């Protein structure tokens, strides 16, 4: 355990890290052009299965976490089959429907607490280390994937599915693989969350969470594997930065601000920096709208990164 870190920072990093993993769960199917609004549903599958294993069967956390990921992957492949033939808004609706089914099952199944929620899940003190480990493994995996033939085939499917199929790419299997892999990653994120929060109910993994996950990737950029990391990091950091600004504002001597019109401006700014949940969602909505107009491909793009490359590297194979 990293003892030098205070509890607040730790919790903050854990949730930011889980969001990064969740963003990657969206990124993998997106790499083959599949946009899913059901990633929260796969997180729920991973969270509930791993929590059942640790609580009801006494399975060690690491094994339960991996099994949760595996069960989510199997679910992902099962959902991915009907998802193969449909695209765009229809796929969004299918995945949305799936995550609603999961949430209704969680609500009505008394074995997992039903409406009262799943309580007293064992707390894993090493969550931050697990999260960091998973992210490192994912980064290694994706850096390798991005430069491999399979990664290129995924990009090709995203850009023109018919052409990819006719050029001998097994589109069906690759799409299933990426959907299943994305679901597995979401399952890991869910399992990590459950054993950190120690409580969850049917609303924990709701549609808004799926939307947030999508926003992470849209903001960061979905054409390179650094995008989801950047998007999730930036969007998790913004509330904290605002909070720090507000704390700093409160340190100002009262006599500096306690006269008209500065006091009004101070109050407005102070309220603005109070970044509670409703404001966060409004901000996400606004960010999404602005991004679609200004940078529809996200902050980081593959082409942008190529331009950053050193000339020596660029001409390596010339």
């Amino acid at each position, binding site marked *: 355990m990293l003892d030098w870190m205070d509890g607040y920072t730790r919790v903050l990093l854990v949730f930011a890290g889980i969001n990064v993993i969740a963003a990657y769960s969206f990124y993998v199917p997106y790499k083959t052009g599949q946009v899913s609004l059901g990633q929260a549903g796969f997180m729920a599958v991973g969270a509930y299965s791993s929590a059942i294993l640790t609580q009801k069967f006494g399975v060690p956390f690491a094994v339960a976490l991996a099994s949760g990921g595996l069960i989510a992957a199997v679910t992902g492949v099962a959902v991915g089959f009907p998802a193969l033939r449909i695209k765009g808004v229809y796929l969004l609706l299918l995945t949305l429907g799936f995550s609603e089914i999961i949430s209704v099952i969680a609500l009505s199944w008394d074995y997992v607490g039903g409406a009262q929620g799943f309580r007293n899940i064992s707390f894993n003190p090493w969550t931050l280390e697990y999260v960091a480990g998973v992210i490192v493994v994912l980064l*290694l*995996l994706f850096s*390798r*994937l991005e*430069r*491999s*033939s*399979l*990664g*290129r*085939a995924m*990009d*090709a499917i995203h*850009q*023109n599915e*018919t*052409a*990819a*199929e*006719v*050029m*001998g*790419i*097994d*589109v*069906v*299997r*690759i799409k299933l*693989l990426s959907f299943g892999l994305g679901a597995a990653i979401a399952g890991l994120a869910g399992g990590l969350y459950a054993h950190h929060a120690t409580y969850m109910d049917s609303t924990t993994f709701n549609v808004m969470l799926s939307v947030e996950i999508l926003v992470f990737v849209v903001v960061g950029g979905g*054409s390179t594997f650094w995008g989801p990391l950047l998007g999730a990091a930036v969007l998790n950091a913004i509330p904290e930065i605002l909070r720090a600004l507000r704390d700093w504002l409160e340190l100002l001597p009262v006599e500096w601000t306690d006269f008209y019109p500065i006091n009004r401006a101070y109050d407005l700014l102070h309220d603005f920096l109070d970044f509670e949940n409703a404001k966060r969602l409004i901000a996400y909505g606004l960010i999404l709208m602005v991004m679609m107009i200004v940078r529809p491909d996200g902050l980081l793009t*593959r*082409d942008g990164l190529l331009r950053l490359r050193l000339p020596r590297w*660029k*001409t390596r*194979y*010339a």
Partner: protein
Amino acid sequence: MPDVSSGGICLAIEGLTKRFGGFCALNELDLEVAQGHIHALIGPNGAGKTTFLNLLTGVLSADAGKITFNGQPVDDSRPFRRTVRGIARTFQNIRLFPHLTVLETVMIGEHCRAFPSVWAAFTKAVLQRPFGECSEERQMREHATELLKFLGLADRREARASDLPYGEQRKLEMARALATQPKLLLLDEPAAGMNPRETVELDGVITRIRERGVTIILVEHDMRLVMGISDCVTVLNFGTKIADGPPERIQEDPAVIEAYLGEEVPL
């Protein structure tokens, strides 16, 4: 005419039929393509040429008929399996991967030869060698570079596919198709939108592809190109074959002249 010693039948079509609702796009087509030939397929717009290519590659499924390729019946439903068996094509409306570079685009074609299955590609590329490049990858890059040289695109290999001028995009489509190491290459209007100089260059390119031992089916409207390089021409009209034979004979065939120019009306 270039003299080609044909080593047998590459492709045999029997009674191939495709209907879209009540419209019969292709009606009981019989066709034989000899090994090593450039076989042209011509006909007015809507004659069923592109439908025929789509049936051959599995993009569409036929309502009736039999396709025999190299003596084996072709009945796999999935297009990628047909590519693996050696049928590759280019598209009339160019379908490249806009964000991939020229080299990467050609390497997409190599993928099915380098990795027999998705699982092999996953384990080889991702799990076995966490750092560096696997030998398959290096080989693919070498093959792709050689193909780009063959088609005169070598100096454009780091360019994005969508940044290429039109003529070079057509060539890139050919390079990508050749990368799948086809025995039969289907070219869907390769000269469409090309200027006369580019079309002359295309003559040479197609002939050189044939010299690599690839049988070619050429769907084209440019008659100078078709009559200049084809060994055999088949003419379609309203989904039916109206003539079949060497280019000299096709040019004199009354049915063909009628299909293209209309019937002669006595004054």
